[in-house]
C-alpha cells in the first residue's frame, strides 16, 4: 500500500438495494444469487464514480443472519464475490474486498457468543471469500472488540489476503460496547491488520475528531467510511448532500486518514463528489509519536508514567489460593482481581500455575472470568507456553506476557506468541547462567531480549524489562546492582521497566519499611511498572507521592483525591457502648465487623461449631425477617455478604492448617439453555453458600448435557435450575428429562418468575423454590 496515495472506497450498498426494490427486513445478500445483475450494476456505478475498492455485498452473509434465507454462507459469499468481480472488470486497479459484518450476536462475557464459535462463523466466510477470488478482507461496523478479534484472527489464520478493520463509534469517542479508540488501536495494531479506522456510525464531520485521536495510537494507514450524516428517525433517510459530504471527507487526509469512502446513505453520486474533492490531494505525512500501551476489552492504559501491576493473583505461598485453584473456584480469583482494581491497580498479573493442575485450561478460564469482572489489562504470567497461548487466545484486548528471559529456547517459544496475539512482553534479565551479579551483565541480557523481540517483529515499545529484585537480607549488594541495571535499561536501551518489588524485604522484620524504601528508589531510577500488592496502602501511598514529585500527577490532583476522604471516613459502626454480637453484625450487613467477630469467636470454639452455632442461626433469623417482609431483597443480600466474610475467615483458617473444606454438600446451580438472566440464580447461590454448601455455578445459557455431566462427574445430589422466560421453561423441562434419563440419583429444585408449584411438578421437578430462602430450606431437607 502506498501511504502517499489516497485510496477511494465505495459507498452504501443497503441504501442502493432498497432503492432498487429490496424490502426493508429482507436479507440483502440473497440478491447476490437472485438478482446478481442488480448488485453488479450498483458496484459498477461505484467503479465509474472513482472507487478503487469494491466491497462485496456480503455484510450479513454469516450463518447467524443468513439462517433460514434459503442459501448457505458459501453460496451467498461466492455469489457476492462473483458480482463484485464482474463489476470490476475493465477497470484498472479496482480491487474486490470481501466485506464481513457483525454476527448480530454479542460475545462473552456480556453476550452468549463464545470466541470459538465467533471464530468459526468468520472462518467460514473468509474461506469461501478467499476461494472465490477476493483481493482483500474488510471487517467492518464492529462495536464489540471481542467479535472483531475473532474475525481478524479467523482472517489471518485462514488466508493470506490483507486485512482491513473498521469499527463503529459514537460521538462520545466510544463504540456501543464502550470500546475506546485507544483499545481498538492497540488491539488491532497488535494483531497485525494492514489498515484500520471507522465506518458507519456518524457523518464525516463527527468522525474527524476520532481520526485525530486514532492517529496518536497507531502508525498504520487509517480508514474513514462515514454515513451521509445522521438519518431522520421518522423516515430513515439521511440528510446531508453529496457536496457537503465530499467537502467534509476532503478534510480527512490532513487529519491522517488516507483510505476513504462512504457508508449508509451514500450513493455513487456521493463517491463521485468525493473523488472530485479529493483529486490531487495527498495525505499529510504522519510524524506523531505513537502512544504505547496495553488494554482490556474496552479501556486502554497508556504506558506513560508509573503504572501499578497487581501481584495478588498468584498461588505462590498462599494456601487459601492454592485450595481455590484445586477446587476450580474461579470466583475466588476474580474476587482478588476486583479487590486490586478497587485498590488502584492499573494492570493485573495472572498466575494460576500449580503442579498437577491443567494450567492452560485454568488460565483460559481465569482470563475469561476476570475480563467479565474487571476492565483492567491482564498480564499473563506463566512459564508454560501452552498456558500463555491459552490465555492470549481467550484474552480480549492487548495483554502483557510475563515472561521471557535470555534463554534462546524460551525466546523462540514465547516471542512468536506475543507477535501473533499482539501482546507486550516482559523480559527477565537472566539466562542459562542465572542472574548476572553485575549490572552490566543484566543490561546485556536485556539487549539480547530486545534484539530477539525485534527480530520477531515485536515493536520496541512492547518490550518491558525486569532487572530482577533479589532478597536484600540474603544478598545485600544486589539491591544497588538492580537499581543500576534498571537505570541503564531505561536510559541506554530506552525501554520501559518492570520490577517485582516485594521480594526485596523477605526475611526481615517490619518488611514494609524496606519494600517501600526500595520501591521509591527504583521509581527514581526509572521504574515504570512496579509489581506490588496494591492492597498495601503504604505502597500505594508511596507511588502516589512519587507521582507528585515526578510531576506526573499534575497539580497533585490524584494525590489530593486519594487523601481527601481519609478523615471523613466513618469509623466502623458499633452499637454505643455495648459490643455488637455476630448475629447483629450479619443482620445489619456489616462485613468488616462480621469478619472480626468471627475471628474472635474462633478463639473460643472450633470452625464447625462457629458455623453451626453462630453463622447459620444468624442467617436463619435474617431469612425469617425476609419472609415476613420486614426486610427486603437488598438487605437480605447485604446480610449474606457479611456472613460470607465470616465464612472466608473460617475457610482461610482451615486452609492454612491444611484441613479439608467445611462443606455441607455440593449443589449445582444453572440458568438453563437459552436464558441469560443470571441475577435470580446468583441470589440463590449467595444464600446457599452462606449456609455452608459448595455451589457449582454453571452460569447461564447452560446446555442440559453440561448439567448432567457435571452432576454425574461430581456426584451432586441436588440440582437447582433457573429460568426467567416462558420460552426457556421448555429447556428447563429438557434438562430435567436429561437428568432423569441419565439415571443419576438426585433431587431437582427449580425457580424463576414464570414458574409455579404446579408447573414445577408438571415438568418433573422435585421442588419449587419461590425464593432463595426456600432454596436454602430445600437444601437442608435434601442434604442436611
Amino acid at each position, binding site marked *: 500500500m502506498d501511504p502517499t496515495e489516497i485510496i477511494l472506497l465505495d459507498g452504501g450498498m443497503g441504501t442502493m438495494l432498497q432503492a432498487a426494490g429490496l*424490502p*426493508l*427486513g*429482507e*436479507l440483502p445478500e440473497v440478491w447476490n444469487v437472485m438478482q446478481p445483475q442488480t448488485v453488479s450494476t450498483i458496484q459498477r456505478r461505484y467503479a465509474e464514480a472513482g472507487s478503487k475498492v469494491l466491497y462485496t455485498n456480503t455484510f450479513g452473509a454469516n450463518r447467524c443472519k443468513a439462517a433460514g434465507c434459503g442459501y448457505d454462507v458459501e453460496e451467498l459469499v461466492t455469489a457476492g464475490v462473483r458480482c463484485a468481480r464482474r463489476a470490476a472488470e475493465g477497470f484498472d486497479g479496482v480491487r474486490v474486498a470481501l466485506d464481513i459484518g*457483525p454476527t*448480530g*450476536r*454479542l460475545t462473552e462475557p*456480556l*453476550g*452468549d457468543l463464545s470466541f470459538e464459535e465467533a471464530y468459526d462463523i468468520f472462518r467460514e466466510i473468509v474461506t469461501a471469500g478467499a476461494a472465490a477470488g477476493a483481493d482483500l478482507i474488510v471487517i467492518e*461496523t464492529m*462495536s464489540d472488540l471481542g467479535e472483531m478479534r475473532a474475525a481478524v484472527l479467523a482472517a489471518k489464520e485462514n488466508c493470506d489476503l490483507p486485512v482491513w478493520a473498521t469499527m463503529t463509534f*459514537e460521538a462520545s469517542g466510544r463504540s*456501543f460496547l*464502550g470500546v475506546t479508540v485507544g483499545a481498538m488501536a492497540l488491539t488491532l495494531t497488535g494483531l497485525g491488520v494492514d489498515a484500520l479506522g471507522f465506518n458507519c456510525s456518524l457523518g464525516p464531520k463527527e468522525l474527524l475528531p476520532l481520526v485525530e485521536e486514532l492517529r496518536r495510537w497507531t502508525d498504520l494507514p487509517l480508514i474513514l467510511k462515514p454515513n451521509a450524516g445522521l438519518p431522520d*428517525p*421518522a*423516515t*430513515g433517510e439521511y440528510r446531508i448532500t453529496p457536496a457537503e459530504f465530499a467537502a467534509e471527507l476532503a478534510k480527512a487526509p490532513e487529519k491522517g486518514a488516507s483510505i476513504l469512502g462512504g457508508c449508509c446513505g451514500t450513493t455513487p453520486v456521493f463517491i463521485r463528489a468525493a473523488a472530485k474533492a479529493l483529486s490531487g490531494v495527498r495525505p499529510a505525512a504522519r510524524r506523531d509519536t505513537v502512544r504505547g500501551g496495553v488494554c482490556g476489552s474496552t479501556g486502554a492504559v497508556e504506558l506513560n508514567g508509573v503504572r501499578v501491576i497487581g501481584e495478588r493473583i498468584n498461588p505462590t505461598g498462599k494456601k487459601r489460593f492454592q485450595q481455590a485453584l484445586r477446587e476450580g473456584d474461579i*470466583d475466588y480469583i476474580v474476587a482478588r482481581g*476486583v479487590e486490586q482494581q478497587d485498590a488502584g491497580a492499573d494492570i493485573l498479573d495472572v498466575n494460576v500455575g500449580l503442579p498437577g493442575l491443567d494450567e492452560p485450561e485454568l488460565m483460559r478460564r481465569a482470563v475469561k472470568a476476570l475480563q*467479565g*469482572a*474487571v*476492565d483492567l489489562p491482564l498480564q499473563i504470567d506463566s512459564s508454560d507456553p501452552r498456558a500463555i497461548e491459552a490465555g492470549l487466545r481467550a484474552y480480549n484486548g492487548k495483554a502483557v506476557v510475563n515472561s521471557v528471559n535470555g534463554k534462546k529456547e524460551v525466546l523462540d517459544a514465547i516471542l512468536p506468541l506475543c507477535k501473533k496475539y499482539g501482546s507486550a512482553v516482559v523480559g527477565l534479565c537472566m539466562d542459562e547462567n542465572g542472574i548476572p551479579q553485575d549490572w552490566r551483565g543484566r543490561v546485556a541480557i536485556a539487549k539480547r531480549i530486545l534484539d530477539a523481540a525485534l527480530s520477531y517483529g515485536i515493536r520496541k515499545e512492547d518490550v518491558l524489562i525486569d532487572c530482577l529484585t533479589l532478597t536484600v537480607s540474603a544478598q545485600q549488594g544486589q539491591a544497588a546492582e538492580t537499581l543500576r541495571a534498571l537505570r541503564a535499561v531505561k536510559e541506554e536501551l530506552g525501554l520501559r521497566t518492570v520490577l517485582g518489588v516485594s521480594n526485596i524485604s523477605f526475611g526481615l522484620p517490619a518488611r514494609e519499611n524496606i519494600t517501600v524504601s526500595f520501591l521509591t528508589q527504583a521509581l527514581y531510577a526509572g521504574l515504570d511498572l512496579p509489581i506490588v500488592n496494591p492492597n498495601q496502602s503504604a505502597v500505594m501511598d508511596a507511588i502516589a507521592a512519587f507521582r507528585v514529585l515526578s510531576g506526573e500527577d499534575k497539580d497533585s490532583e490524584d494525590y489530593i483525591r486519594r487523601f481527601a476522604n481519609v478523615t471523613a471516613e466513618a469509623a466502623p459502626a458499633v452499637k454505643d457502648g455495648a459490643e455488637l454480637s455476630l448475629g447483629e453484625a450479619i443482620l*445489619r*450487613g456489616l462485613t468488616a465487623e462480621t469478619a472480626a467477630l468471627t475471628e474472635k469467636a474462633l478463639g473460643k470454639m472450633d470452625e464447625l461449631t462457629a458455623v453451626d452455632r453462630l453463622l447459620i442461626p444468624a442467617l436463619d433469623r435474617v431469612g425469617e425477617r425476609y419472609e*415476613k*417482609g*420486614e*426486610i*427486603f*431483597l*437488598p*438487605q437480605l*443480600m*447485604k446480610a*449474606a*455478604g457479611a456472613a460470607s466474610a465470616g465464612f472466608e475467615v473460617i475457610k482461610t483458617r482451615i486452609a492454612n492448617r491444611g484441613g479439608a473444606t467445611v462443606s455441607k454438600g455440593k449443589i449445582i446451580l444453572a440458568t438453563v*439453555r*437459552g*436464558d*441469560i*438472566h*443470571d*441475577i435470580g440464580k*446468583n*441470589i440463590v447461590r449467595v444464600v446457599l453458600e452462606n449456609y455452608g454448601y459448595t455451589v457449582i455455578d454453571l452460569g447461564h*445459557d447452560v446446555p442440559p448435557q453440561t448439567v448432567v455431566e457435571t452432576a454425574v462427574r461430581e456426584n451432586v445430589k441436588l440440582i437447582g435450575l433457573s429460568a426467567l*422466560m*416462558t*420460552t*426457556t421453561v421448555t429447556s428447563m423441562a429438557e434438562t430435567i428429562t436429561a437428568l432423569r434419563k441419565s439415571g443419576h440419583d438426585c433431587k431437582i429444585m427449580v425457580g424463576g*418468575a*414464570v*414458574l409455579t408449584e404446579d*408447573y414445577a411438578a408438571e415438568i418433573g421437578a422435585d421442588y419449587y423454590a*419461590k425464593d432463595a430462602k426456600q432454596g436454602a430450606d430445600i437444601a437442608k431437607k435434601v442434604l442436611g
Partner: protein
Amino acid sequence: MEARLDRIPRGETLRYLRYRGGELGGESLAELDRCETLLLQTARPRLVWRLFSLEADGTLAGTDYRPAGEDIRAFLSDCDSVVLLAATLGAEAEALIRRAAGRDMAEAVILDAAGSAAVERVCDIFCGDLAETLAPRFLTDRFSPGYGDMPLSDQRALFRVLDVSRRIGVTLSESALMIPQKSVTALIGVSDRPQPKRAGGCESCGMREDCAWRKEGKSCGSN
C-alpha cells in the same frame, strides 16, 4: 427525539425489588440513592424508532414484516400507522450491573431493579415526546414481543427492520433475548381516535395465569 433519562422512578425500583413495606432504614435509602446515581452516570441511553403506515393485512408498509398473533391485530385495530421502537441503557450499564454481582449482591439486585425502571423511564419520556410530535393524533400503549400471543421470535424481524444492532448496539442472543438486557422493543399504534390503556393490563399478558404480582392482587402496571 433523543433518548433521555432524567431520573429513575424510586417507586418502580422498589416494585421490581418486591418491596413489601418493611423497615427501610437510612442505610437502605443511602444505598438506593447511591445505586441510582451510579446508574444515571453510567447509562448511555439510546433509541431508534421509525413510523410505518399499516397495509390492510397488517404488514408494515415498505417492509416484509407483519407482526404475528391475534392480540397485536386487536391492539392496532383502530390504527393506520405504527411506530417501532427500540431503546436501551447501553452496554456500560449492563457491565456495571453484571460486575456488581461479583462484588456485592445487594448492590447488584438494586442496580438490576433500577436498570429496569430506568429503561422504562426512557420509553415513557420518548412516548411523551412522540405524542406531542404526532398530535392531534393519538397513541396506543407499548406492545412488545412476548406480550399476549406475540412470540418472542418477532424480535428478529423487528431488529432487521429497525437495523437495531447497527443503530443502537443491542444484539439478540440465540434464543432471541436482548443483550444488553436493559433494553425494550415495542410497537406503538397511531390512530385518529383516543386509545384505551391496554398493554399494561393483565388481560393481554401471556403470564397472567402464573404472575406472582397477580397472585398478590396487584399488577405489574400498578404500584
